[in-house]
């Protein structure tokens, strides 16, 4: 809200300022339903031509514990969830103590005075507004649900403070509680109004979001995991198998619930090895199937993924990355599975790795993953992460009629079929599913042993060389088909920031900010990581420095996982790594600080 417009109006002695955007952090315990407030705000923004992005941390313990939800709503493009909050809503003392620092100087802290004793020292730096949220909620709904509903009460406070559209919010509350006892929705609306009409003391100013740009079509609001699950359905996937693990489980839960409507099914297996095997079995049976997990489970699936590479059976594997290694940090983000995804197989086992950049991209990249798997008969690993998995964004509703695919297996009888035909252009052969009659009477065996063109085992050095090359050539052909990534900012300059996956937003915002300050910085986000698209060296050559920004460790030699791949690929000494391992998404300022530091510390040394 730093850019508060000067056209402030006065009403009721309270100033109402038009703001282009605001970052609101809600801190409480996980059972307080703070995700729900965030969800309401995000959905409202989606219905109001506003951009929105959220960020949340959930504790890994089931019995509650501290949890936050941060929502950034803006009238312009919102690329990250915001470095600093304009408003902090704190339910407890620990929420207040732990999150005050996330508030920008002069920001507003709205706290539950039933639970929070404010720090008099802090009152100098932040505008404090105490509201007895708990007791007022109990009062408003008659104490039936105890403090349940205080999230909606708080939503009322925020609605007042930000001049939010009350009928739309009421509607959202009603929708959320449909199907439940009507008193639940009634109580929620009561609590909301109690919050909305609460006389805020000590308030000097209210805010109003500036009108966003009208957009064509409807906006839909969801998180990245949902977008992937629906992307799979749109792509025509009808079978999946998995084992639960945070932050992957939502995808399997959603598919378990939704796939039956489409005549499909999702199976919860005894472990990750069973699930990848089952998915490969279903893929072999003719329709690309899916499995997924997070790092620990992907490690377990590795052997079977290698089989799919060898046997040339299509498969989609979703890896929702979390902090590793081992059980690591289950509810934090990290981009540290790239090596596992790209190289986590024994033998030479080329597979495809692609990484969506935001929630909308999750939807489309998933469809791509399915199609790449089908076209090249290869496993595709969709590398996403805890941050996109849980953040909510609004995006334009897809045109389902156009996009939904029917990938029912083609069982038309064929005269003859060589599953591993070495003469196939670019080595690309198509899997022919069981149930397909083969006129010649010669049926294929699909196998993980090195094989001849019919799938029969061989120890021939010549065939192993030819088949190894076949499996690699397919990916080289794919690389030639991949679009070159766009450069964000100017096509040339001093510094190019290279990122992949979910860091696209904060990196772009950093570029925008830096360019505003006159720095010649641009960025590029890689969706296709294995294989890399062709032509990257040309892009790199137009910049003096190339920094690869990743949420993983700089490693033994100072390069993160993507940086190491790029250096190996391009032998370009200008490629350097900017890394962090705090388990949190990049803040825009962190990116800018790191770039500044790097440029300053090495400017003399490198003669730049």
């Amino acid at each position, binding site marked *: 809200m730093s850019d508060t417009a000067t056209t402030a109006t006065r009403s009721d002695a309270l100033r109402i300022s038009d703001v282009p955007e605001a970052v609101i952090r809600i801190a409480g315990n996980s059972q307080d339903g703070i995700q729900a407030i965030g969800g309401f705000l995000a*959905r409202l923004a989606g219905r109001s031509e506003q951009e929105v992005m959220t960020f949340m941390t959930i504790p890994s313990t089931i019995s509650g514990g501290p949890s936050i939800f941060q929502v950034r709503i803006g009238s312009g493009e919102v690329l990250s969830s915001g470095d600093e909050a304009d408003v902090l809503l704190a339910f407890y003392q620990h929420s207040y103590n732990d999150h005050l620092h996330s508030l920008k100087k002069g920001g507003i802290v709205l706290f539950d005075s039933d639970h929070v004793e404010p720090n008099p020292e802090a009152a100098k730096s932040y505008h404090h507004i105490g509201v007895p949220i708990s007791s007022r909620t109990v009062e408003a709904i008659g104490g039936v649900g105890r403090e349940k509903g205080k999230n909606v009460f708080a939503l009322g406070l925020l609605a007042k403070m930000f001049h939010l559209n009350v009928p739309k919010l009421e509607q959202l509350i009603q929708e959320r509680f449909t199907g439940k006892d009507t008193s639940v929705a009634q109580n929620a609306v009561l609590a909301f109004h109690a919050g909305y009409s609460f006389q805020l003391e000590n308030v000097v100013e209210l805010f109003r979001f500036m009108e966003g740009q009208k957009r064509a079509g409807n906006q839909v*609001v969801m998180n990245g995991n*949902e977008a992937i699950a*629906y992307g799979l*359905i749109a792509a025509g996937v009808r*079978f999946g*198998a998995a084992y639960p693990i945070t932050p992957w489980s939502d995808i399997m839960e959603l598919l378990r619930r*939704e796939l*039956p409507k*489409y*005549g499909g*099914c999702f*199976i919860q*297996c005894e*472990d990750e*090895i*069973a699930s990848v*095997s089952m998915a490969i*079995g*279903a893929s*072999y*049976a*003719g329709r690309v*199937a899916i499995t997924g997990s997070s790092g620990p489970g992907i490690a377990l699936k590795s052997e*079977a993924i290698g*089989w799919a590479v060898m*046997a040339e059976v299509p498969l989609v594997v979703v890896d929702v990355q979390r902090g590793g290694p081992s059980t690591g940090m289950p509810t934090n983000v990290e981009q540290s599975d790239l090596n596992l995804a790209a190289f986590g197989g024994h033998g030479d086992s080329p597979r495809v790795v692609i990484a969506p950049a935001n929630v*909308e991209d999750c939807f*489309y*990249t998933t469809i*791509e993953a399915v*199609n790449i798997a*089908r*076209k090249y008969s290869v496993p595709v690993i969709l590398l996403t992460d805890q941050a996109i998995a849980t953040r909510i964004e609004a995006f334009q*509703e897809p045109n*389902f009629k156009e*996009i*939904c695919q029917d990938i029912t297996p*083609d069982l038309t*009888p*064929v*005269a*003859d*079929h060589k599953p591993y035909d070495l003469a196939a252009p670019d080595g690309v052969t*198509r899997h022919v599913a*069981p149930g*397909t*009659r*083969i*006129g010649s009477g*010669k*049926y*294929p*065996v*699909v*196998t*993980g042993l090195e094989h001849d063109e019919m799938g*029969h*085992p061989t120890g021939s050095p010549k065939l192993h060389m030819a088949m190894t090359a076949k499996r690699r050539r397919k990916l080289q052909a794919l690389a030639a088909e991949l*679009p070159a990534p766009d450069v964000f900012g100017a096509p040339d300059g001093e510094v190019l920031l290279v990122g992949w996956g979910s860091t696209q937003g904060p990196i772009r915002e950093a570029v925008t900010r830096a360019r505003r300050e006159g720095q010649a910085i641009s960025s590029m986000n890689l969706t296709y990581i294995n294989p890399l698209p062709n032509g990257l060296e040309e892009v790199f050559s137009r910049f003096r420095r190339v920094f690869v920004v990743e949420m993983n460790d700089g490693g033994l030699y100072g390069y993160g996982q993507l940086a190491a791949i790029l250096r190996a690929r391009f032998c370009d000494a200008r490629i350097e790594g900017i890394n962090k391992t705090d388990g949190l998404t990049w803040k825009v300022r962190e990116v800018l600080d790191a770039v500044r530091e790097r440029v300053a510390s090495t400017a003399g040394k490198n003669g730049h």
Partner: protein
Amino acid sequence: MSQTRLFSIPPRQDALVVPPLTEAERKPLTKKELAADHPTWCPGCGDFSVLALYYKLIEKRKIWHEKVTTVAGIGCSSRFPYFVQAHGAHFIHGRALPFASGISLSRPDLHVFAFSGDGDAFSIGGNHFSHTARKNIKMTLVVMDNWVYGLTKKQTSPTSPLGFKSKTDIWGAVDQPINPLKQALAAGATFIARTTHTNPNHLLQMMDAALDHDGFSFIQCLSECVEFFPGAFDSSNPRKGGQFVEVPKDHDVTDEGAAYKLAGQPFPGYFGILYKTSRPTKNALEAKIGADAQSKVQGLEPWQILQKTFDRMK
């Protein structure tokens, strides 16, 4: 934004269409049509007879050529699919069952057979054995139990008897062997049979009955490894002076307790169907969930169902 990058798939180019055969044109497949590579097993290996009877079964039951799907993990026994001229998959060690489950659950039109060894099924794949059994996923599993790791050349297997001298137990095996029949029972298998490679008629009978069973049918087939455990099953072979005793005629195959008792008899024990019960298959249960869900979206195309879902997310 990203809508432009959806990779297009050209139609299958190898679809040199041959007309489908009508049911009337279908003749039972001959051994000649079903035999593929010459088996690489050692001469005298028990697995040969399982293969020969599998051909017989397909012939006898007039299974359509393209509908047979043969799946295996890794092991001597698991080489099976290469020797069958039909669609087949040679998967990884221990995981034939989940792979076969993926086929079974997504393709009700196929006959799914999994062939496995004692190490493959009960050691590395032990977990899958229990879960496939309890889920009652429709398929037939034949485990060629030779009480040893054949392919890797004589290590102790989970069914190796105490005292068996292997390369990993030079003094003789010390770990209590598992009893696959009891395990299958405990896991909730709905069809459990025991047979041996030295009695072809019986082996075919068991496969025949397994094929008729609507659910997970498990056959433990003693199959001698002449290379690393010769003579292991002699006492069950009348031609070697042993005894082949069938499950008593009055045994109630639905009686779990009675089956458990029969399963626990000392070698050579009983041969035949020890247990058979009827419980809905996972295939049927999932199909029911699907039918119920689909009845609520009747008449809608997939894109319309998705559209409805997204309408709630605006």
